[in-house]
């Protein structure tokens, strides 16, 4: 199987640059606003989109994404709205995945969830709280729906375990840059490069780095050693500091343009 996401990394590798991967929770800031954010992502040069499935108990997320998820949940976002956002992103021709905690998948139906990803032209799913030890029913479903199963690894993940986790990964390996939760930070942890180097010793799958990436400089730095740069909270902050949806969308667009330069500058 080859998903649009797989094809993207073939392309960015041939261009000797990193891919810019942008995150937005479905239904944020509103259902329509989310589609406008996705359009801004597509227009301004994002390479791949992560649609977040807002969840009531997001233990991997810092305050920015928690609050965005709450806002979205209060507005009634559920699986239907997540797949609508995914369909909107893929219709723009952008390789897209869903990022979700495990329980919403289990409640929706494991096989059915994988099938709905595929039927909305999604490339795969990132599951931040599903260790590979519990993942057999899920990877069985992703294989039969021919979508990517993307797992998250951390600086604390041992080499032996990296081998085990990346063996179940496809699309890319999500490397958490630091020990902690999502959120914009002033600098990129020095542990990120070490982790990417360790991952590259055990797998040929592309590696994308997330957690704390928010500026062109960060993107440039990460692009120096990783195949993908993941940005999330910084877009939510941009939307939140704007006084209207329109100016928020403009701010998102500007940030994407900056980050898109960053991912092209890292290889010197």
């Amino acid at each position, binding site marked *: 199987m080859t998903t649009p996401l797989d094809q993207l990394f073939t392309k960015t590798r041939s261009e000797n640059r990193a891919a810019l991967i942008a995150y937005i929770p479905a239904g944020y800031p509103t259902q329509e606003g989310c589609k406008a954010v996705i359009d801004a992502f597509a227009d301004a040069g994002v390479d791949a989109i992560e649609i977040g499935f807002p*969840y009531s108990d997001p233990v991997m997320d810092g305050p920015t994404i928690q609050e965005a998820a709450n806002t979205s949940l209060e507005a009634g976002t559920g699986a239907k709205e997540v797949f609508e956002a995914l369909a909107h992103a893929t219709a723009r021709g952008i390789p897209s995945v869903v990022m979700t905690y495990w329980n919403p998948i289990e409640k929706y139906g494991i096989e059915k969830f994988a099938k709905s990803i595929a039927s909305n032209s999604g490339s795969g799913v990132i599951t931040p709280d599903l*260790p590979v030890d*519990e993942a057999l029913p899920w990877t069985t479903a992703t294989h039969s729906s021919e979508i990517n199963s993307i797992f998250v690894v951390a600086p*604390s993940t041992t080499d032996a*375990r990296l081998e085990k986790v990346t063996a179940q990964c496809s699309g890319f390996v999500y490397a958490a840059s630091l020990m902690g939760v999502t959120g914009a930070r002033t600098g990129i942890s020095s542990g990120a490069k070490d982790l990417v180097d360790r991952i590259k010793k055990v797998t040929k799958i592309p590696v994308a780095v997330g957690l704390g990436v928010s500026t062109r400089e960060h993107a440039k730095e990460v692009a120096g050693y990783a195949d993908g740069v993941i940005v999330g909270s910084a877009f939510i902050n941009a939307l939140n500091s704007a006084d209207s949806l329109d100016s928020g969308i403009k701010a998102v667009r500007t940030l994407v343009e900056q980050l898109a330069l960053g991912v092209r500058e890292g290889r010197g």
Partner: protein
Amino acid sequence: MSTSSTDIRAGHFGQFGGRYVPEALIGALDEIESAHNAAQKDPEFLAELAHLHKTYSGRPSIITEAKRFAEHAGGARIILKREDLNHTGSHKINNVLGQALLAKRSGKKRIIAETGAGQHGVASATAAALMGLECVVYMGEEDTKRQALNVVRMKLLGAEVVPVTTGSKTLKDAINEAMRDWVTNVETTNYLFGTVAGPHPFPTMVRDFQKIIGEEARAQVLELTGKLPDAVLACVGGGSNAIGIFYDFIKDKDVRLIGLEAGGDGVETGRHAATITGGTPGVLHGARSYLLQDENGQTVESHSISAGLDYPGVGPEHAYLSEIGRAEYRAITDAEAMYAFSLLCKTEGIIPAIETAHALAGALQVGRELGKDATLLINLSGRGDKDVVTAAEYFGIPL
């Protein structure tokens, strides 16, 4: 020990249990698991813990026959296991002493804990003070208000109490916040989980530290009555006091094990915390078990007059014991619990925790069902000092 009659494979209880956590925590959970397994085989550790039980928390706890209370329970014989008499006022100290000793042996300088009613927070702060560890307790802002006395106790003991303002501002959100702290500070910090929920090894480890309740009680009841009880009852939030008293009786197939969940305004109203009675299987806080959730898998807020039972999840071993029919679970409403609370105060001179009052209300029901020849063993899991303000408001007693 980490293998037991109900562990099918390590960390799993049938389809329940397991580990659903960020990869960042896997190493720490492995470390705690192996430290626990080693400690359970280490005579020095076991002796140190036994010494603390004997000289610090006051074990073995006694049993008390509640004869006047029993008159209201169909005349059945009612025996109370007095965990309320432990230092810090509940069974929570049993688990905390074990986990804090483990943290110390692993060279950790800092412990974190979540708390609902504040009993686990107070116990954690106590153990931290005793062993010279830094202690941070996460507590829902809502709970810091209804359990203000316990907040002061924790602060007096030198702990930092962090009010959690996200989500429902109760125990569930305190656990989320403690997990986030742990993901960030895992190298220096052990998370002292307070109940038999959460990712493996917590359900197994906490049970191992709480099963002393049932081991003592089984021998004490045999000595007093010459036979095993007909039923063992305990309240169930996360389920640590219940698994503690149930565990040694699981092998005694004729002994009924009955868990009493918080029915709040009534399970039919949707405003309750009766997870097994009114919930469905799913994953919350790192394990598959029963939980209160909506059609999108979002956790639904629980409701109970008792902060300690106000939790939308339950330990996976309880889910399993329910599924295989070895234990039964019933819901007790706020009103039923408060009636039993008042009755125990006035018939026995014991003010129970409101959590525990759910088990006492269950005893009134089961006693009437089984009649005067039956013997019921009730885990009196905690004392009610912390609940006097809630009780005063409930009964309209001016403060």
